[in-house]
């Protein structure tokens, strides 16, 4: 039973936005090099279609791998911080500081540390930029677990590990997915940042750079739109995962 309204509304919103954009460019008479209009983008997209798919895929898999690493590391870190108050107090300001460093400045530093390891660098950056929200949400989820939940199992002599697996972990899943929705976008941005700042000839970021080198403005804007589309896809992929693994929480909220 598909709810057509749920699809129709956002789609028409996107269409309206594109129309307004087209109209604006047309009314203002802006040249391509100031602001390309949607109708210019389609030819640019068609011409480089293969590259879009190829590069899109490269950007995608690096983002997903980086996010995967962030999930593992962020969950572990969150567990440490959620289960120990001292570790939380000690690590939190460090993480805030680390998170506040603009990643654009870190990209060159990483590139220097692991020279030539392009895939590794890209994944590392996607990871570094995205693990923070995951760690924070897992930590909060664990530290706010009501004691009754623990007592139910502990009174039966269950070990800490059992309590963690049977209760604490599933109970933090909704927070975890909330953070994952933020993290996936961040990882995506991280991947692109590396592709743009230390160009190594792969990914949509590279296509953007090439477009810029050739003054091909419609292509630049087309890449921007492709990035937005890919970002939306990634985001809703996480929403779908949430529905599968923490559907109980989503459904309860209705």
């Amino acid at each position, binding site marked *: 039973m598909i709810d057509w309204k749920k699809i129709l509304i956002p789609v028409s919103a996107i269409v309206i936005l594109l129309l307004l954009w087209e109209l604006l460019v047309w009314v203002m008479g802006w040249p391509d*090099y100031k602001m390309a209009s949607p109708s210019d983008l389609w030819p640019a997209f068609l011409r480089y279609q293969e590259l879009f798919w190829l590069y899109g895929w490269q950007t995608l898999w690096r983002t997903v791998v980086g996010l995967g690493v962030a999930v593992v590391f962020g969950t572990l870190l969150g567990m440490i911080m959620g289960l120990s108050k001292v570790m939380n107090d000690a690590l939190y300001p460090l993480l805030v500081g680390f998170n506040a460093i603009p990643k654009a400045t870190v990209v*060159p530093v990483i*590139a220097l540390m692991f020279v030539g390891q392009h895939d590794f660098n890209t994944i590392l950056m996607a990871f570094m930029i995205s693990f923070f929200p995951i760690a924070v949400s897992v930590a909060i989820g664990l530290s706010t677990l009501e004691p009754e939940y623990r007592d139910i199992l502990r009174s039966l002599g269950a070990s800490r590990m059992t309590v963690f697996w049977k209760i604490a972990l599933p109970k933090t899943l909704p927070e975890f997915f909330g953070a994952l929705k933020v993290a996936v976008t961040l990882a995506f941005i991280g991947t692109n940042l590396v592709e743009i700042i230390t160009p*190594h*000839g792969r990914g949509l970021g590279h296509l953007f*750079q*090439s477009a*810029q080198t050739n*003054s091909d403005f419609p292509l630049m804007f087309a890449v921007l739109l492709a990035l937005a589309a890919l970002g939306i896809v990634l985001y809703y992929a996480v929403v779908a995962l949430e529905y599968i693994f923490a559907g109980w929480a989503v459904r309860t909220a209705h």
Partner: protein
Amino acid sequence: QTSVPFTLDWRFEGPAAPYFLAIDNGYFEAEGLDVEISPGQGSLDAIPKVATGAFPIGFADMASVIKFIDQNPDAPVTAIMMMYDVPAFAVVGRRSLGVETPADLEGRVLGAPPPDGAWAQFPVFAAEQGLDMDAITVEPVGFPTREPMLAEGQVAAVTGFSFTSSLSTMRLGVPEDDIVVMLMADYGVDLYGNAIIVNTDWAAENPELVTGFLRAVAQGVRDAAADPEAGVAAIAARNPALDSELEVARLNMALRDNILTDWVMENGIGGIDEERFASSLEQIAMTYEFTNEPDASRYFTSEYLPTDGSLMME
């Protein structure tokens, strides 16, 4: 006084000294101009700024100007004064890693950032030198890692601007006599370097101002050549984070290799050689597919250059 914003292609570094000297020494003022200089983020930033009329005058790489006009034939922009008779495009290698001539690149690793201007011309360079591209291992590197990789010996040579890559490599502790700078212009690449560009609509309305601007710039170049330290000091006043020593070296290299070339010393600064320009268009066509028929007169015009001898550098 007419207010004239002027956009550079890059940050405030040593080679920008002539413009600041032209301000500080009152040359612009004498021409009735009130010039404010803005930094840019590459030629591809400066050109549209001029094309849209936000800046009447700017400074950009000639190859980029040509491509931009080819993509946007209606854009009201054109080059009017050639500043770098020889472009800074270079291959920088290390003697100790076995690179002394272009032929040495074969069988070795060349580091090149994909969007690098110098790398874009490398096929021309290779063709002119008869290099076998398949024999050169090209490692795509990021800008920030280019020189450190050369310093660490992970690549034997890199493509880049002569005065950027060689100085940075020196900074990283590589002895000066180990560094080989092969200016592509010395190896058959006929391309021109950076030029002053203008919004043609604005220029058509203010031809005297444009000419005055160019006259003042030429005077600035003379002053910078006479006292590079003073030139860098003029920039340092605007950018306190500047490393003056480094920038003086950079300015000196630019003056020697790119600006005050033999051709300029003979014919004066700012003009072009028609034949060489035509050849350069052919060389661009080797790496870039023109969407329109190339038309030299569309890319550069000398009509605004002062004819009162103020372009002569001696």
